[in-house]
């Protein structure tokens, strides 16, 4: 059965390694913070200027001066630090953040990503996404395998305006975990529980490599 949003987040959380600084985008990526494995210490960076971001505040303890990049009220954990936007993107560009998780509208089998603009619709802007994808050494895209029209979001080439080129290394969808090898395309690594390889093949428009045993995710 296809994963729900929390399932995708839970699977991505398994990728966390001890000592990593992590930037989580808006939407599914934000949920990853709820599933940090035991024994793993990570710190969350939000590009509006905080490291050591904690959970939402208790009711009545919201502080208008403490928000995340999604403009949600948050808290700061012990050891947190606050800084300006130039320093924040400085640490992003200088690759001090080990993992960036973000959503996407389309991903290509060469690692291109499109997630900021749909021609003809109101364009809200790229925010920090272009900076993040241009610099992060490790980007995981969290998204549905298909869009609302049932079309694959894993393509041979993005049709929408790009956010970045050749930057995505791993995609976790409701159906599968896939690595991206720019030479070969999407490499199928794991299936969602109960999802068949055939379904994944059918719903992946870009080049897909299926090699050997493809295990089910263990969540």
């Amino acid at each position, binding site marked *: 059965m296809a994963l729900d949003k929390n399932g995708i987040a839970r699977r991505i959380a398994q990728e966390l390694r001890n000592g990593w600084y992590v930037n989580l985008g808006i939407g599914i990526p934000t949920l990853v913070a709820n599933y940090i494995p035991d024994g793993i210490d990570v710190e969350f960076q939000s590009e509006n200027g*905080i490291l050591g971001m904690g959970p939402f505040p208790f009711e009545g303890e919201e502080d208008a001066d403490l928000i995340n990049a999604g403009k949600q009220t948050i808290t700061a954990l012990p050891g947190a630090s606050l800084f300006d936007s130039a320093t924040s993107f400085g640490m992003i560009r200088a690759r001090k953040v080990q993992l960036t998780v973000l959503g996407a509208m389309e991903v290509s089998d060469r690692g291109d990503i499109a997630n900021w603009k749909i021609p003809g619709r109101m364009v809200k802007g790229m*925010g920090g996404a272009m900076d993040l994808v241009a*610099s992060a050494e490790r980007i995981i895209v969290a998204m549905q395998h298909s869009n609302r029209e049932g079309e694959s979001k894993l393509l041979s080439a993005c049709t929408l305006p790009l956010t970045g080129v050749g930057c995505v290394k791993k995609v976790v969808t409701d159906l599968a975990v896939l690595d991206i090898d720019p030479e070969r395309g999407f490499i199928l690594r794991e299936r969602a529980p109960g999802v068949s390889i055939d379904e994944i093949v059918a719903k992946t428009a870009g080049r897909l490599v299926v090699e050997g045993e493809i295990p089910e995710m263990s969540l």
Partner: protein
Amino acid sequence: MIRKVVANADVALEGIQDGMTLMVGGFGLCGIPENLIAALRQRGTRNLTCISNNAGVDGFGLGLLLETRQIRKMISSYVGENDEFERQMLSGELEVELIPQGTLAERCRAAGAGIPAFYTPAGFGTEVAEGKEIRMFGGKPHLLEHAFDADFALVKAWKGDEAGNLIFKGTARNFNPMMAMAGRITIAEVEELVPAGTLDPNSIHVPGIFVHRIFQGGHFEKRIEQRTVRPRA
């Protein structure tokens, strides 16, 4: 000591004219110069170009200046939690230039640091790169980006002193320090204005040399855009 204190927001805005370029601090509604925006609306200055990460919401932040059609152009990284903004943009009344957030921050920082231009990887291979010089560094393509040039910077700090030194609180810091450093004339509104010598000189976020005018804001609403809480266990 060089004193920077002015009486209020209206006095602080002296010299702001139609057609000028302003930097306006804040991320969403967090850390925006509320009093200066209100005073600017009162003054009715028009045809403004605003460099600001976001464009406020309907009825608050820069949304107040959009309502009165005082802004001709927005330079931002993310906009559109704002119906009036969308209407003006789609109708062509408002020009919008979208810039990656880190590039926006660094172009402010460059202006305040006297660096006319720098290279950044953000935006390579996207429409942001169109018309820009591309150069390889370390085997990776980068775009040449230029420092902003703003007539005025309007920023909001938590505490400030008579010498213009500023301290920010929480994530209300965001773009404010770089914009404060970048403006040809920088105006700071603060929640608390204290005598010189009160703030720890080690803890100043923006040295007073960058701030031309400072005043204590009369009223701060500090509206929250997304109030998220967790249940008490």
